[in-house]
């Protein structure tokens, strides 16, 4: 790199939102380091009980999958019914505007203090379940030119991806397409889909913006086929959409045997070190990997790349030969921690398997030990399984090491169904492989920590993370029996065809016949850790289950999707719970200090920002079919009364 280029890079790094300073919330995770930390202090543990709703907006972009939406955007499918919506968009606050992406793939620009619409942009995306069973959106990305040219449009831009693999760039002030980006403001991302393309490279997660680059991953269907599009990460020019570099996760010699290992979740950036951290998912197909080499590197990993070149700096595999769909699913949180008298550049990688991996983010080496331990071996003919898997004892796992056992109430109410079923299944603890007789899998693919990841107070090194305790049953079904079985349920019924292999898979959550979890609660928790020592400070059931309107006991907690944010005043804000309520908790104790009902589970990360001297907390309450059929198009802003 030349001296001038290096200087420019440093200037860009200084301009980037390394932390959510000055009360903005410019990225999916609040800041590039995925700390989800706001320096704002107006709302405190003492006054948070006074928090009131100051505005509420319904976008109209919602579908329950049954009824025709009242407001349609984009081409309608037959009958006008579109798939259900899963809206997990973090609202962005930048440019004195609140920006939202919707699951009908529109961009909305709102006034931050009133919610009044400034402008909207309709991508006219196809509203079909091309790669996911639901219409998903996790928001938009924001970019601003370091040296804006007066009078020229698109010096600040908003980017929106779509299920049908289009990346749109519009002017952040007007919502007009940026003509210099792609073709008339739209980049056909599927033009990169050149190997085993069986579905479009869906852009559900907004790009990560650093300097003048957009880092883009994609989402697909890694449960459907044995061989499909290989996972690659793209660095695009923020102005033109031209490819700057590409990082291919899979080596070319395995592309005839597998695919995906894509990056579908958010990424983080160390602006000083110019390192991009990518959470890499597992290769296809999800649950049967006889054709995938046992020693395939980088897949199911956290990996660091040079932001300028895409060069691999280091990679740490978190699951070997992943047979459980334990995708690395969240951006690692970057934070410097005081350790043994020295400041260590660290990252914390949360995971579906429930481990928190605390690594030196320069080298990838563990700060707290990671130990390879023998794990149960597959009994499926032709399948392979890794002899060992990485385990972490400190910080403590966010879920128990073994499934919590049969819940007596659920067992009694079902006449012993839970006990009888458990006795028939293979159950040998963590990493029990899928089997034809059925295996108890814990934590399973929706367990541990999902894509919301954790949040950290960088001043104290206190890290907070929500989790889910879910027991699932993985049952491989021989190919000649699969079609009949799947015809009864389809992909949304937990069936994964894994075409091109001898097996399909049925994945069921371990419920009794009346729909009650067969395992002991709590079903979800929120925990705080001191990263300096690795000690868990507190661990409390989080959220509540609401069924038929009835709230289950608080001690049972709730499955959680989404994540927490922390403010400098010592508060945690989180939605994430099945009971469609948003909460504020005390960072010191985990005590719930405030809660409010919203229209559906608020599975998005909230945004915390300051506008004209007033602090706001905004939640998107969109729902998620994994948690509840309740969906919504609601955006709610809270502030202290004036």
């Amino acid at each position, binding site marked *: 790199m030349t001296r001038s280029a290096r200087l420019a890079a440093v200037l860009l790094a200084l301009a980037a939102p390394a932390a959510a300073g000055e009360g903005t919330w410019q990225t999916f995770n609040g800041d590039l380091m995925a700390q989800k930390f706001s320096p704002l202090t107006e709302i405190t543990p003492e006054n948070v009980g006074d928090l009131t709703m100051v505005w509420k907006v319904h976008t109209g972009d919602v579908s329950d999958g049954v009824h025709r939406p009242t407001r349609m955007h984009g081409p309608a499918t037959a009958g006008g019914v579109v798939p259900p919506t899963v809206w997990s968009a973090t609202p962005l606050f930048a440019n004195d505007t609140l920006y939202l992406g919707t699951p009908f793939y529109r961009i909305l620009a709102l006034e931050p203090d009133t919610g009044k619409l400034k402008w909207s942009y309709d991508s006219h995306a196809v509203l079909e379940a091309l790669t996911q069973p639901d219409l998903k959106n996790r928001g938009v990305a924001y970019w601003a030119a370091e040296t804006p040219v007066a009078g020229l449009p698109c010096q600040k831009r908003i980017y929106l991806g779509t299920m049908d693999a289009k990346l749109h760039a519009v002017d952040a002030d007007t919502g007009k397409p940026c003509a210099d980006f792609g073709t008339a403001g739209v980049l056909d991302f599927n033009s990169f889909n050149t190997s085993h393309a069986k579905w479009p490279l869906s852009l559900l997660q907004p790009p990560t913006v650093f300097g003048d680059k957009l880092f883009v991953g994609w989402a697909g269907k890694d449960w459907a086929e044995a061989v499909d599009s290989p996972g690659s990460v793209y660095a695009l020019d923020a102005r033109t959409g031209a490819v700057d570099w590409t990082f291919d996760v899979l080596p070319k010699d395995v592309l005839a045997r597998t695919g995906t290992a894509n990056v579908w979740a958010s990424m983080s950036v160390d602006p000083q070190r110019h390192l991009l951290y990518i959470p890499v998912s597992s290769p296809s197909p999800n649950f049967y990997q006889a054709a995938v080499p046992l020693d395939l590197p980088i897949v199911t990993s956290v990996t660091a790349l040079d932001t300028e070149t895409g060069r691999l700096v280091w990679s740490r595999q978190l699951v070997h030969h992943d047979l459980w769909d334990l995708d690395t699913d969240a951006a690692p949180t970057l934070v410097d921690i005081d350790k043994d008298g020295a400041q260590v550049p660290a990252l914390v990688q949360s995971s579906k398997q429930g481990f928190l991996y605390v690594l030196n983010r320069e080298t990838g080496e563990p700060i707290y030990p990671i130990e390879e331990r023998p794990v149960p071996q597959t009994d499926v003919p032709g399948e392979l399984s890794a002899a060992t898997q990485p385990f972490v004892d400190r910080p403590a796992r966010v879920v128990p090491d073994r499934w919590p056992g049969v819940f007596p109430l659920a067992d009694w109410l079902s006449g012993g169904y839970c006990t009888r079923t458990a006795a028939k299944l293979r159950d040998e603890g963590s990493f029990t492989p899928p089997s034809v007789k059925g295996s108890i899998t814990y934590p399973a693919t929706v367990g541990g920590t999902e894509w919301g990841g954790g949040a950290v107070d960088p001043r104290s090194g206190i890290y907070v993370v929500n989790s889910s305790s879910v027991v699932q049953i993985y049952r491989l079904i021989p190919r000649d029996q699969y079609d009949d079985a799947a015809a009864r349920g389809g992909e949304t019924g937990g069936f994964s065809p894994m075409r091109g292999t001898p097996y399909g898979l049925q994945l069921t959550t371990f419920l009794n016949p009346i729909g009650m979890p067969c395992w002991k609660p709590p079903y979800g928790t929120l925990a705080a850790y001191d990263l300096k020592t690795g000690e868990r400070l507190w661990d409390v059931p989080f959220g509540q289950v609401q069924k038929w*309107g*009835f709230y289950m006991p608080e001690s049972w907690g709730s499955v959680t999707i989404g994540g927490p944010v922390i403010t400098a005043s010592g508060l945690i804000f989180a939605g994430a719970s099945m009971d469609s*309520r948003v909460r504020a908790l005390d960072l010191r104790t985990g005590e719930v200090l405030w809660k*409010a*009902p919203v229209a559906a589970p608020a599975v998005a990360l909230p945004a915390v920002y300051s506008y004209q001297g007033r602090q706001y907390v905004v939640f998107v309450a969109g729902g998620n079919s994994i948690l509840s059929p309740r969906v919504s198009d609601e955006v709610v802003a809270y502030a202290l009364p004036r």
Partner: protein
Amino acid sequence: MRHDGGLLMALGAGLGLLVAIWGFLMPTQLLAPTSATAWTIGAAVSVAATAVLFVAGLVLAGTAAPRGLNAFLLIGSLIGILGTALAGCLLESQLLVALMAVCLVGWLLRVLTRRPSF
């Protein structure tokens, strides 16, 4: 001629019916602004249960009911009161729970005070 206990039960159930209807129709429970149960099965059940208790209370307030019906209503009412109180707990409607406590007092009065007031 009337039974005060039955009247008290009808009063508690009648007010409970209003609270339950509020919980079924309005965005949040009455006096419980963090609890949202509108248009849910649970809230509908609480409406039906309090309505039945209200009618049962009125019948028990009179003396014209045959002995067998009286016994049936007393047993059914007790189950209804306790079940509705549990539903109130799970719906996070403390007001409904309190009104079911009023119903229970009325029920006890009805059982323990054999002589009707004139």
